[in-house]
């Protein structure tokens, strides 16, 4: 008997979403199969990698990273230009740590100026990440969206508490991309997409952050959530879940004790930098294989490794 390879066909397809403008604009999504399953159908656009930078000096980052960025880390524009030139990721994620009300509490106007300057000085698409303070983020994103008008920036992110203002300013008035963020809750992920859509933001302008965790921190639940979302999007052709997924991996993996503890504190855990890279790489690789269309990473070595991983799997 002749062997016949069985092929899994789905009726649904993930939306294709464009980030940025000009020759370095990128597209994410577009697949109609499970991640990297090129033997089943069209895997769409290659998963993308973004690199994280901050609006302030990266005080809490590990020594080796501070060293790499020592000449530029006080100036977000120079920092962004350096990352673009030196590491050439698919996009840059500018994170407004300095806007946090529990920290420097920079004004939305000041942040908007920075975002504008960064966007104007790089060719790569820009993702702007907020503070995780829902009230602050809603005014922050309104100002940023206005300042970077025409740059097709990704706003990370709108949550249940502020999706109206973020969605209205970001997705409707200034036509940027809005990330709908839920925290590992499949029903809320769907609900938030419906609400943002009912607000008037078109589905093709929405990306999802369905919640992220570092490996070892409830990670199986994250994986099964993404898996179920993808199966509903593809298998049930659920249009309210067909948005591509972006996950800020570095926001999680560099915050846990396994990457914070120094070698002096935990000699048996070995080199701190290697640990951090290991956590970032294993988290990102796992999330990409379950359905993330874009990940945000911090360490250049992680970017290089994950790039190779994607290259091998899409070759």
């Amino acid at each position: 008997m002749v062997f016949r390879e069985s092929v899994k066909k789905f009726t649904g397809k993930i939306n294709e979403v464009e980030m940025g403008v000009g020759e370095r604009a990128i597209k994410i999504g577009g697949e109609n199969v499970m991640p990297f399953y090129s033997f089943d159908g069209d895997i769409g656009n290659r998963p993308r990698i973004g690199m994280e930078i901050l609006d302030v000096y990266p005080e809490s980052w590990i020594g080796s990273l501070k060293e790499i960025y020592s000449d530029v880390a006080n100036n977000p524009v120079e920092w962004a230009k350096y990352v673009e030139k030196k590491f050439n990721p698919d996009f840059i994620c500018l994170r407004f740590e300095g806007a946090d009300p529990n920290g420097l509490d920079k004004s939305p106007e000041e942040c908007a100026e920075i975002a504008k300057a960064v966007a104007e000085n790089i060719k790569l698409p820009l993702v702007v990440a907020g503070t995780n303070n829902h009230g602050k983020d809603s005014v922050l994103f309104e100002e940023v969206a206005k300042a970077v008008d025409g740059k097709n920036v990704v706003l990370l992110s709108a949550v249940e508490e502020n999706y109206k203002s973020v969605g209205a300013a970001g997705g409707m008035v200034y036509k940027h991309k809005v990330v709908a963020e839920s925290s590992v809750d499949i029903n809320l992920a769907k609900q938030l997409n419906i609400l943002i859509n009912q607000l008037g933001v078109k589905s093709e302008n929405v990306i999802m952050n369905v919640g992220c965790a570092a490996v070892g921190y409830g990670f199986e639940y994250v994986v099964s959530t993404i898996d179920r979302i993808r199966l509903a999007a593809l298998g049930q052709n659920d249009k309210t879940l067909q948005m591509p997924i972006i996950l800020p991996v570095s926001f999680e993996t560099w915050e846990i004790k396994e990457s914070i503890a120094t070698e002096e504190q935990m000699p048996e855990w070995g080199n701190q930098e290697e640990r951090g890279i290991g956590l970032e790489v294993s988290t990102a690789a796992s999330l990409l294989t379950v359905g993330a269309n874009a990940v945000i990473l911090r360490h250049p070595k992680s970017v290089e490794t994950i790039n190779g991983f994607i290259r091998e799997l899409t070759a």
Partner: protein
Amino acid sequence: MSRFIVIGERIHCISPSIRRALAERNPQPILQRAKEQLEAGADYLDFNIGPAERDGEEIMSWGVELIQKEFDNVPLALDTVNKKAIEAGLKVYNREKGKPIINSADAGDRIEMIDLAATNDAMVIALCAKEGIPRDNEERIAYCTELLERAMALGLDPNDILFDPLFLVIKGMQEKQVEVLEAIGMISEMGLRTTGGLSNISNGAPKELRPILDSATVAMGIQCGLTSAIVNPCDKRLMETIKSCDVIKGNILYADSFLDL
């Protein structure tokens, strides 16, 4: 499992305004009912032109083109006993959004509708009946098997057949209701898909009771395996029930706004 398929029944020549519109080739009343049903969430629209012995071919192709052109090639069920009219409709049908459904074949005079579906790669509703109402489920399943065998011999995919156990009116045939549900269960256990003219069950009941009876019956039917029905999609209670059943069965993922979709 796939979502429940709602086939809208409201373009039917039994309605005086539709009958007149068909005779006069007046698009407006037909398009109006198509619009209402689609907005209410119908997946397929049934286009019933009656026996149309005189000008069936012309009416069917006119109506198929009219509705599909106006509503982005919405998939249709072509509903008449006139075989030539079905053939004419199939010729102009656009398959972009789904295969046409032939409504309907039975194990009697209309068995050749199965052949028509097979030749034209169409779906078909297969009534588990020959002459009148089947006596019991043994007879229903015998007809079901007969129709299935004929279809498979002609190369028709069993998934393209929607078996209709024949819903019966509660008011008058109350004692037959459970039997019909059991028939749905038996057909579903064979891995086959089912449908039926659900509104039959509430015929003759006061208007305000019909949505209640229809909703209860569809819910019980879905639990037995019913995969689609020919219904009035403008019945809000019924549509809410169908969506809720889809959530409970896991055919669609729950979100607080699931009724809005």
